[in-house]
């Protein structure tokens, strides 16, 4: 297992460098926006691009980038979106807002989603199951920004229960901040709850009809005991990776929800960096999400072994 893990980490670093280099070059190959002919700022822009080394070969630029990151953890400065500011500090400033909203959403929605899924599976082919399954499909089919607008209109405008926007400031765990993010959390949660309900119901339904469940019952376990000890554990082989996936989503933020509720998060950062050709921000976010994605896939792979002993890679061979 250790050898397998080390091997995966080495591959991960290799893949990471390839992806980052490709992105590094591709973003620089995008054409610069046009300025009106004879605009005097063109000359200033060109002078600055020259000074920034953007006219040097890509490999030279990439080498310097790697050197600065590895030796000084210097990710450079923003040239367009947040001119003159260190991109790392901007990224770190914006990460908590995305995380807090998504964290609340996951903490709320995963237990509810799993609980509803279990309930629907246990009540399979009853009106409860049909109702939950239908609602799940409807909720999944509606994009989260629709909920956002509906929630904002009903709860913020008509009922005046919550503020329209997320509160300003960095007191992330204060009560006013919590209240201000409730509409965003609600908007995000509907889809997640429905997703986990559907996944859990589908897996549990299948497992509950397995022969080993029959065996468990014939051994004298109650239905609840058999479900929790045997059925649920099997379901988690599918559910746990989905939970990991949701946690990665935490860091990515939600572009639309952040726009609607004025959440100063990272949702649109990568996209804006591409539109604005802000190379350093784009590369930082690319590195971050690539690293997170690769690590998550490693963790998920390894977690299979812990959840299900049948999937321990290369164990004791």
């Amino acid at each position: 297992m250790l050898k397998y893990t080390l091997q995966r980490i080495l591959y991960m670093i290799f893949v990471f460098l390839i992806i980052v280099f490709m992105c590094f070059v591709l973003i620089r190959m995008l054409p610069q926006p046009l300025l009106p002919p004879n605009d005097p700022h063109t000359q200033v822009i060109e002078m600055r691009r020259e000074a920034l080394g953007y006219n040097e070969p890509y490999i030279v630029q990439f080498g310097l980038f790697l050197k600065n990151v590895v030796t000084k953890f210097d990710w450079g400065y923003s040239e367009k979106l947040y001119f003159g500011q260190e991109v790392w500090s901007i990224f770190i400033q914006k990460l908590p807002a995305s995380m807090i909203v998504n964290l609340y959403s996951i903490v709320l929605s995963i237990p509810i989603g799993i609980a509803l899924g279990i309930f629907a599976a246990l009540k399979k082919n009853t009106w409860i199951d049909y109702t939950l399954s239908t609602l799940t499909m409807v909720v999944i089919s509606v994009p989260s920004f629709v909920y956002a607008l509906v929630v904002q209109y009903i709860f913020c405008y008509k009922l005046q229960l919550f503020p329209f926007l997320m509160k300003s400031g960095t007191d992330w765990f204060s009560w006013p901040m919590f209240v201000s993010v409730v509409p965003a959390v609600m908007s995000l949660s509907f889809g997640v709850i429905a997703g986990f309900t559907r996944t859990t119901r589908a897996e549990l339904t299948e497992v509950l009809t397995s022969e080993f469940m029959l065996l468990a019952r014939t051994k004298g376990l109650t239905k609840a005991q058999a479900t929790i000890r045997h059925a649920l554990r099997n379901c988690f082989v599918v559910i746990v990776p989905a939970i990991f996936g949701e946690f990665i989503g935490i860091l990515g933020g939600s572009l639309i929800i952040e726009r609607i509720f004025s959440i100063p998060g990272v949702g649109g950062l990568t996209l804006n960096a591409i539109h604005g050709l802000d190379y350093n921000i784009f590369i930082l976010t690319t590195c971050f999400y690539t690293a997170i994605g690769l690590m998550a896939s490693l963790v998920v792979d390894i977690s299979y072994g812990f959840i299900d002993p049948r999937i321990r890679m290369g164990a004791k061979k």
Partner: protein
Amino acid sequence: MKKMKKPFALLMATLLAASTLAACGDNAETPEGTEQPADSGQQGEAETTPAPEEDGGAEEAASYIYKDSVSQLCTNWNPHTYQTNDDAYLMNGALTISQLYTTVYNDELHPVDGLEPYAGYVIVPEMAADFPTDVTEAVKAEHPEFGIPESATEGYAWTVPLRDDLKWDNGTVINAETFVESFKRLLDPKLINYRAADAYDGTYAIANAMEYSLSGQPAFKSFGEMGTTYADYIAEGHTDDEVYVDMNGFWGVTAATKYGFAPITDDTMVRDPAVEEGEDEDYVSAKYLYDNYLAAGQPYEPYAADYLGIVEYPYEAGYSYDNVGLYASGENELTFVFKNAFDGYYLMMYAMGTTWLVDPELYDSCLSEQETASGSVWSSTYCTSVETSRSYGPYKLSAYQTDKSMHLVRNENWFGYTDGNHKYVDPEDHETYDMWQTTEIDVQQIAEPTTNKTMFLAGQLMGYALQAEDFDQYRNSEYCYSTPAETVFFLILNGYKNVIEDREQAADFDQATTDIETITLNSFRRAAAVTFDRELMAATVSPARSGGYGLVGSVYIYDPESGATYRDTDQAKRALCKFYSVDESQYASLDEAADSITGYDPETAKELYTQAYNEALEAGYITDADGDGVCDQTITITYAISQDSDFMTKTIDFMNDSFDKATEGTPLYQKIRIVKSAPLGNDWSDQLRDGLVDTCLAGWTGSRMDPFGLTDTWTNSRSAYDAQWFDPSTVSMTVNVDGQDLTTTLDEWSKGLNGTMISIDGQDYNFGYGMVDTEVRLDILAEFESTLMGVYDYIPILQDGGMSLLSQQVYYVVEDYSPVMGRGGIQYMKYNYSESEWDEYVQSQNGQLQY
């Protein structure tokens, strides 16, 4: 049941985590050194404002918060480096800055002879203690380094006395040296500041600012400037490696070419961003441009003198700032030396603009140097946070959160609150009031119009820009304000005959049922010009806009001293009467004649469509095989759309209906159809210029103070939509100047109006600003507009504008819109309710206001 405890406990623990997280911690944590506003648009929190009292003494204690929203909050308001309008928010509103001079309404405190109060404006000193003094003669004698022309006697050098009570928000004194140090940093060659170009380039450049800012940088010098040609240069013994193409100027290619020029031997392909990837010439090199366009015998050879040249280092490295024309001539006196001569409005409001003022000490502490692949580059965090900002205007930043919100409070160190000059007389009650009643400004980033609207209706925002779906409900509201914009949207009609013929020859084109050539007939285009009821069209498809009748919009001001607009001049009115065939003699006055213009004349249109039918039949564009007097083909006009939308559908439907009404009873009845193109994205304008699509509503926005500058857009081949089929250098125009008829081409007139010396009948003329009487310039512009409209490539249709709702909490002292003053800005805004009163009022309306 015991076995259930673990999972159940786990579930409960998870659920409780949310409330635990929410409960722990308090709201004391704020960004480092950043204060939080008392209220950032939140509901349910108690106001910190004390309740107003009944007597007048409560006025000072009351709080008046201007609650604004922006779709993108500023991220860098450093006056030396900002690049976008979003970043200019604090400067545009003069919130954290002041200028040397400003404009105020001509109220009873600032009367103007012959003008009703609030009908105009006056320029008054702001940071300056008095008006500028012309010192051209003295400076020319003492400072030859500034290069004031020998013949010049006035307009180049000016001294400005500064107030002696100027301070930054932290109380530090601002004097003449602060201005000089700021300007020096703006131009500093090592900082390569984006806004440096504003100071060293263009009409309002300061003497030698370019030499200082670009010292040590290479520059392109064309053969035309050198007075030579490519052939002569090579004959002198130079090689092609020494000859450069100005790739930026000639082809608009800036990326990946050092400074925008490259040797004609350089075959490095660089991306042309104006061309779609995969299309022809999406990548070009200097060699390619030379070989295919600028070399002898190639199509653009006549332009070779402008775009071929050499690269030199004209500005010596280490050039001293002592030679730059902005210096302190006293502790509180500045001297400006310009490259050109100015006076009046342009001098005080443009040339002496000092938005570049910075606190030198703080500025220097915000600089940092980064290592780059080609050396190093400097960056600055000045004006990117509360800590790195300094105000010298009425407000100062008190809180800022990136991409979220900012809050401003009064800058008590601003001289304007105590100098007694910032007052006005209310036109209604004739009482005198202080300007800037607003005590705080709160700005939230709100990207979604829907959120903006609901927050506005809940009383949490001061304004809401109406969206298309809002017009029916709110356009007649007493709180709705209409604001015109610069742009006139004109209908461009394709006249590129060669391409149209090629399109008709295409295999999939059915000439039996479709025709696209008739659109090129002058009679057809004249008919189209009177087919659309413009006001009805505006009301139907875009209610914030109004009918557009001329090519120059209604807000362009030709005389900044008086604020008079071009469209209100006799010349402009006569140009429209001439174009729309309105006989001035049939009306009591010229104004009446001009007012009668609707641009809609179905009877004339019918005559012209019938004439167009006959001409098209004769030319073989269309047929009438069965002799029933009805055109066999449908004249199909392809409308270039960048992307499909309801607006596009409504617009095209309206135009097709208008064609049907105008052709009823003619052989072309129901035979003219505008159809949408495929979505063309950014390529729509190129397709239009290349004649591959036939029409589009489009427009240009120019400088509001310079209608004359617009003429360049129609005569410059890089901007004109009809450059491929209309050559302004072949169309002559005659204007009577001082009793003498002068005739030259449209492009020459345009150059002359924009300050270039032109030659007519062997005599040199310059019709630029200040060079001739304004009436002469107006005569030329009106004749130019009339002549160009007579080509019928551009048919004016809509005047751009916007509509917005204003909160019931405030009102404008002057409701009428003025192109110079707008509606007065925040300084003239008055409050119906203080914050606490407003909260009570909104609650009494159940939190949902009616507009």
